Every structure is written in structure tokens, then in C-alpha cells.
């Protein structure tokens, strides 16, 4: 079994690096960790980076997960290879671009680009936000799925993810105590559905609602509250149509042994208990 320890980063291509930088600092509120001509490394917590924009195709999106060590990384490569996934071992140059010791790349059954990494870099300097959004860290991703049941099986059987709750057939899965690290979302093809950052308080969610509205950032869902995780949330749209989420108050699954996934109906009130409706096209 592939043991995912934590989420590490998201890498996304962008047609306009300047626009991405402006959004990331003035709207999202991340800190620029490092900037080269063709890539922008953004921090959200004590890690050296959790989001990287690079000059390229906006459809080129990758999610990185941390695994324990190189032995487990090699075992993961073998497992994936056996299952027929094409596995790419990161070259030293590619590792440097990701600020990791080693990594492998592959695609999940829907075709999402996934990387498993070893020893992602932390920063000695504390995180200092570019605006007072109250961000406490990069927390989870939504991944498109073309077949929820098949992908749930991949993440829970091949990898170590556990289902925390389901909305219809859509699984919210955890790899540690946090209610979910991977949320599947129905889509026509591969891609990141949303990128979540946690914020300090309810106040931060609502402050950002007014801050972003004032900057004409499209609010696509919320402010709202997920009945599944209990989190208060706000979804808004960034460059190249990518959706970002702020949330606070995600439950922790305290009893790993006895937790049973709850089944929520596939209806709007399962996504928001306050009554917000998502404006995202399906």
C-alpha cells in the first residue's frame, strides 16, 4: 500500500505569470518564497512552497503528496508499475524545481497528474503573508474524477486514503486526522477542482468575502458551511479559471478505528448547510 503522509504542493501552468503573481499576493494572500524567470514559488505556511505557478499550459496541473522515505517511494513506484500506471522517476533538475529530495510522477485512473515526493523543503523563516487573509496553510485539494467509485478504490486500496464521508457517490478522503485531504469532484476529464487553504477564523472567511468582492474576484460558492467537515468556506476564482477555497474549522477524525463514513444525499444542502448555492458550471 502506498502510504501518503501529507499533501505537499500544487504545480500549475499559467499563460500569464504576472497575473498569477498579482492574484496570489493581492487576493489569495500568499507569500512569494522564490521567483525565477519562469516560475513563482508561493508559501502558505512553514514549508518552502506549497503552490508553484510556472510558465506553461494552464491545463498542466499536478498535486504532490509526501511519502515517508525513498524506500517507500521505490515500493510505491513498483506497485504503480505493476498496476499498469506509467511511472516517471524525477531527474535531479526536476527535483530541484520541486524543492524535494526525490519524486515519482504518475497519473491516477482519471488522468490527474500526481507526484509522490520525499523530503520536501521547509523554510527556516516563518511564513509572512502578503495580505492579512489569516492563512494558516495549504490543506487539501479537490480532484476531478470521471468515475467516482473507481477513483475511490484507487485512493483507498492502492493508497492509504480513508473515506470520511460521502455526498452521493463522491468521497471525501483523509490521509491523516484532518477530515479530508482529497475531495473527489465529478468532471469530464482530469484536473484540479479546487485548492484549499485554511484560515484562522470565521472572521477571516467573511473578511475575505468582502475583500475579494471589492476586488471583483468572482465568488463561486459561499460564504457557506459544509455539513460534512463542519468547515465554514468561501470559494473564489483565480487566474485560468482555477478555484481556490478558504476554510476554517475542518473537523478532525478523532477515532480512526471506529469512524464510519456518513452518507449525505447528493443535493445542495449536503454541500452547504447555510443555503449558499454553487455558481460553478458542472
Amino acid at each position, binding site marked *: 500500500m502506498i502510504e501518503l503522509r501529507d499533501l505537499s504542493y500544487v504545480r500549475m501552468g499559467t499563460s500569464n505569470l504576472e497575473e498569477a503573481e498579482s492574484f496570489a499576493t493581492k487576493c489569495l494572500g500568499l507569500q512569494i518564497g522564490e521567483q525565477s524567470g519562469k516560475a513563482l514559488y508561493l508559501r502558505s505556511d512553514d514549508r518552502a512552497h506549497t503552490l508553484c505557478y510556472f510558465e506553461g499550459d494552464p491545463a498542466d496541473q499536478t498535486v504532490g503528496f509526501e511519502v515517508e522515505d525513498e524506500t517507500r517511494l521505490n515500493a510505491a513506484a513498483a506497485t504503480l508499475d505493476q498496476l499498469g500506471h506509467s511511472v516517471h522517476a524525477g531527474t535531479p533538475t526536476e527535483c530541484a524545481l520541486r524543492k524535494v529530495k526525490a519524486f515519482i510522477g504518475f497519473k491516477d485512473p482519471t488522468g490527474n497528474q500526481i507526484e509522490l515526493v520525499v523530503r520536501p523543503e521547509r523554510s527556516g523563516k516563518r511564513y509572512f503573508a502578503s495580505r492579512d487573509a489569516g492563512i494558516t496553510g495549504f490543506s487539501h485539494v479537490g480532484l476531478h474524477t470521471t468515475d467516482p467509485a473507481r477513483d475511490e478504490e484507487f485512493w483507498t486500496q492502492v493508497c492509504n486514503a480513508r473515506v470520511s464521508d460521502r455526498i452521493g457517490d463522491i468521497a471525501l478522503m483523509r490521509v491523516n486526522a484532518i477530515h479530508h485531504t482529497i475531495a473527489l469532484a465529478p468532471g469530464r476529464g482530469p484536473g484540479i477542482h479546487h485548492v484549499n487553504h485554511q484560515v484562522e477564523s*470565521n*472572521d477571516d472567511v*467573511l*473578511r475575505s*468575502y*468582502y*475583500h475579494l468582492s*471589492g476586488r471583483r474576484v468572482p465568488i463561486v460558492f459561499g*460564504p*457557506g*458551511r459544509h455539513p460534512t467537515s463542519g468547515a*465554514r468556506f468561501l470559494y473564489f476564482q483565480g487566474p485560468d479559471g482555477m478555484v481556490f477555497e478558504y476554510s476554517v474549522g475542518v473537523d478532525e477524525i478523532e477515532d480512526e478505528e471506529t469512524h464510519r463514513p456518513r452518507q449525505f444525499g447528493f443535493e445542495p444542502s449536503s454541500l452547504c*448547510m*447555510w*443555503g*449558499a*448555492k454553487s455558481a460553478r458550471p458542472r
Partner: protein
Amino acid sequence: MSAEKTSPRIPAIQLCYVRLAVSQPQAAATFATEILGLEHVPNKLEPFLYRSDSRFHTLCLSTAAAKSSIGIEINDEADLDRAAEALASAGLPAREATVDECAQRFVRRALIVADATGNEIDLVLRPAQSGRRYFPSRDAGVTGLQSVALRSRAINDDLKLWTILGARVTDRAGEVTYLGIDQKHHRVVLYPSDRAGLVYVSYGVESMDAVMQSNYFVQERQIKIVQGPGREPASGQIFLRFAGPEGYVFSYGYGLRDIEPSHRPRQFTADASSLCEWGSECTDVTELQPARAG
């Protein structure tokens, strides 16, 4: 010096009710139950009477009243008489309510007085409590009538009445003045204005969820949100202010802070962020805008 005169007890006990002067009671009645979610109280005297908590009523829609008024419970007969004297010497004569007027207010005795601006205030004794628990018309999470905001032409002049009643200024935001009469941050707020009247009537709700659920509930019903969802820095409460019938504004509030005995009134700046720390703004009601508040 008699013990009576040195009594530290505050004459004002609680905000008991709001009597709203309306011309179209049926529409207002529908709003009271279907939107606000209050419980209608069947009785022989007032056809449009509503509960929000254990009290017999906290809202009365009146077609007979010329202007809206609020009810403040006074500790006892002696305090009421003393308040009446003090008000008269301050140039604010109080009128003894008739037996019928008391009955319509569901109180044993009432003095009707107006502040310097002309806001009508009933000083009442023994307002009716209900034996039966409150059963709301919709699940809005209302916990009770919480506060009222009054328009004031001259804050300092209007404060005379409140000082006599024992209310104290807890905070100011620009010239907006918060008044406390019990352990809560405020029960009455005075907003600078050029006329008398209510700025809003606020009902407490049980959670932030309740405020936010009502935010979407009223939007879906095409009810105009006047301000919010927002959060008042002085009192800490999360609020949603929305348009009611006949130009009245209602508010839901959650998280109104208790006031510490050591609290000293703070002066907040006359900026929008002193009225809402989240950034909500009001475009319809001038009293709720920072320019006016300053």
C-alpha cells in the same frame, strides 16, 4: 440621606417590546411569522402580537399607534416615580398611560415619555411573561428581542433620558452611541440622524449558522439585505440587517458580548471598519453609513 436615594440599583431592567406603527398590518404580520419567524400570540386586544422568547410578547404591530415606541421595564413603583420626577425636571414630561393603554402593552403600569429627539419610550412595570415556552414559526433560531437602534437628532440631549434610567454608554463608534442596561454590551444604540424613529430592531439568534442561514433565506425571498452579514467590532456581534415592511429594518444578531464591570467606554474611529469589521457596507440607510456616523 435616605437609603432610597443612594440606592445603586439601575432603574431600567430590560428592553421588553417594540410597538411598530404600521398601516398595512396583514403584510407586516406575514413578515413577522414567515420571515422573522416569530410566534403569533392570539389575544383579545392586539390582533398582531408576537413572541420571540419566554415573554408574553416582544413585538406588536399597531395600526392605532401614531408612532412606533419601545418598552423599557423599570425596577419597581418607587423607581418609576423617581424616574418620572427626574424626567420632568429634565424637561421630559412623562404621561401616565391609561388602563387601556396598559392593557394593550400587557403591563401593569406605564409612563409614556419621549426622548429629546421625539422617540417614544414606555417605562413599564411588570410586563407580562408567558407560562408556555416559545414556539417559533420557522427555524430561524431566534432567542429573543435583543436590542433596538434609535435615531437621534442630538445624542447628548437624548442621553439625558437614558442616564436617568441608569443606562450607561458602553462604547462609541464615531458618534454612534451604544447603551447598556444589563450585562450585555448594549440594548439600545443611538445613531445620529435628522429625525426620530427606529433604525432597526434586533433579535438575537442562537448561532453564526442561524445568521448565515437567514442570509440565504431572505435573499431567496427577494428581501433586501440592508447590511451584512457583518460583525460589529464594539459589541462583537455578527449581524444581518434586512428590510422589513413599511421601511422598517430588522436585524438578527449573534455573539453580543457581555460587558465586564471594569469596562470603560471606548471611542472607535468614524470609519466603516468601526461599524463592520468584515467589510460589509450599507447603501440604503444613511444612519448606518460611516459618513453620518462621524
